[in-house]
């Protein structure tokens, strides 16, 4: 979206004036109304749709069994999380296909960098110890972009993961015919775990939620302009900002007490002194408490 210099200057002047003026009358730290629904796609293991002031992201979570001999040699016995974001042409009608691909890729990388941390991996993703585990595929679809996309994206992913149910499995052991007396050296079954395969329990049960789902993070984008910062910027406001500082926070338990941990920091825009980062960090924490209730 291209804006003229006078539009940007007009918006910036409004933001730094006292009292600050935004086009929809919000204060600098107000979010637009957030609309969230979970379980919107019953065929996925978990799903959510979040809409915030014109930005809409739909997330579907699918669980897939990963086994030891897979093609890209990336099997992990404790399971893993893979993220993918797709920006639809309907959200960005003016973008060319390669530009859309690049944007999708950049958002996927930000999401993957956060969710590939082993500290965030749920502990209940093991199916057959050492041989099979669950891979959680998070697929996000950006259907509309009205500004502040990263915050909405992380909110939607968190909601979908909260909603996600991993199917319950039962391990099956194959027992050979019992041998009287000594076992020969050719019997190798005892060397690895006894479980050789699994089956999915009766599908009428929902399955279990992901083990540490209250620790999944959300993102707060602080738009910086001279000495002020503001949240939930529209497209025009983000053009007027000099830079964007993104903090990705998570709490350790669902009570929202205690200090949040930072799971990621990203920066886009012009150069600025380091102490600005220090001063803006506590603001992010306070906003997190507001959003943490969702």
């Amino acid at each position, binding site marked *: 979206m291209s804006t003229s210099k006078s539009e940007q200057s007009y918006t910036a002047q409004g933001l730094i004036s006292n009292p600050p003026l935004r086009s929809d009358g919000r204060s600098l730290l107000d979010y637009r109304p957030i609309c969230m629904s979970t379980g919107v796609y019953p065929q996925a293991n978990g799903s959510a749709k979040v809409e915030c002031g014109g930005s809409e992201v739909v997330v579907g979570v699918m669980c897939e069994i990963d086994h030891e001999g897979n*093609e890209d*040699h990336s099997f992990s016995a404790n399971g893993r999380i893979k993220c993918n974001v797709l920006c639809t042409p309907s959200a960005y009608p003016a973008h060319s296909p390669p530009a859309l691909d*690049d944007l999708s*890729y*950049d958002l996927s*990388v930000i999401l993957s*960098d*956060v969710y590939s*941390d082993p*500290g965030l991996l749920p502990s209940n993703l093991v199916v057959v110890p050492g041989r099979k585990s669950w891979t959680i595929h998070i697929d996000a679809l950006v259907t509309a972009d009205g500004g502040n996309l990263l915050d909405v994206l992380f909110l939607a992913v968190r909601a979908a993961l909260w909603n996600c149910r991993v199917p319950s499995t039962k391990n099956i052991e194959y027992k050979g015919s019992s041998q009287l007396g000594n076992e020969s050296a050719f019997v190798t079954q005892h060397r690895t775990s006894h479980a050789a395969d699994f089956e999915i329990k009766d599908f009428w049960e929902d399955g279990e939620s992901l083990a540490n789902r209250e620790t999944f993070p959300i993102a707060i984008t602080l738009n910086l302009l001279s000495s002020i910062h503001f949240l939930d910027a529209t497209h025009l406001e983000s053009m007027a900002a000099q830079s964007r*500082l993104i903090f990705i926070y998570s709490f350790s338990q669902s009570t929202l007490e205690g*200090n*949040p*941990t*930072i*799971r*990621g*920091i*990203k*920066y*886009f*825009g*012009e*150069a*600025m*002194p*380091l102490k600005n*980062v*220090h001063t803006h*960090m*506590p603001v992010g*924490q306070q906003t997190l408490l507001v959003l943490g209730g969702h």
Partner: protein
Amino acid sequence: MAQITSFDRRRVNGPDDSFPPIFSDEDQPGSSSSSPLQRESRKPKDIRPIFLQTGLITQANGSAYIETGNSKVVCAVYGPRQAKNTSYSEKGKLNVEVKFAPFASQRRKVPNRYLQDAEDRSLAVLIHQAIVPSVRLELFPKSSMDVFLTVIENDGIQSCGTAGTIAASAALADAGIEMLGLVVSCAGSVMSNGEIWLDPTTRELEHSRASLTLSCMPALGLITNVSQTGQVTPQEAIQCMDACEERCSDIHMVVASALHKNQSAL
């Protein structure tokens, strides 16, 4: 992308897949399974020595070659030259492209001239954000500057990012492009006991809880990029950023003296 093996019946076809050799860890000091509680051969806040030389690629407008530890990155800058699109742009465009050599990492990367791999683009975006605030793009309307980075050896994606940023900034200076200041970059990691180790090697990164990369212009006291992954408390993040910024002024001296030496040699 799945690779379709085309069988040629007139020849003896090799195996479909290839695997890197597995080396035994016995002769290497400190195998990777034990977590290093004390840093070997360096203090926690020390970085590895940097070798930087500019002007090695003669046909480019500016170039730089940097080595830190085992990471080796070469950077070539072409520009400013006329941008391909006919639409008017008030400020110049800075394009950063990163390519890993097929032999750069442990596993061989399939060379493909047209496809930019996943890892390449995220590193390019990081380096682009680090150097773009320092270049005076408003002096080059309708022009574009191309920064091409080739990673010859990859000793951890962090060190490639920091080395690449330093090389890109040195190459831009070598090309004579007007900048507000030299950009230098430093990476730090937070270990499981809360200690901060600067310039981590791949092995040290495996045992760390979080890693942070800071790029700044020490001459102006401004930062151009901060990027963090992993899990930290806000206090640790601030400590790590401060430690990185302190070390950046030392790196700036190295880069400035290397540029000065190469200029006076001309």
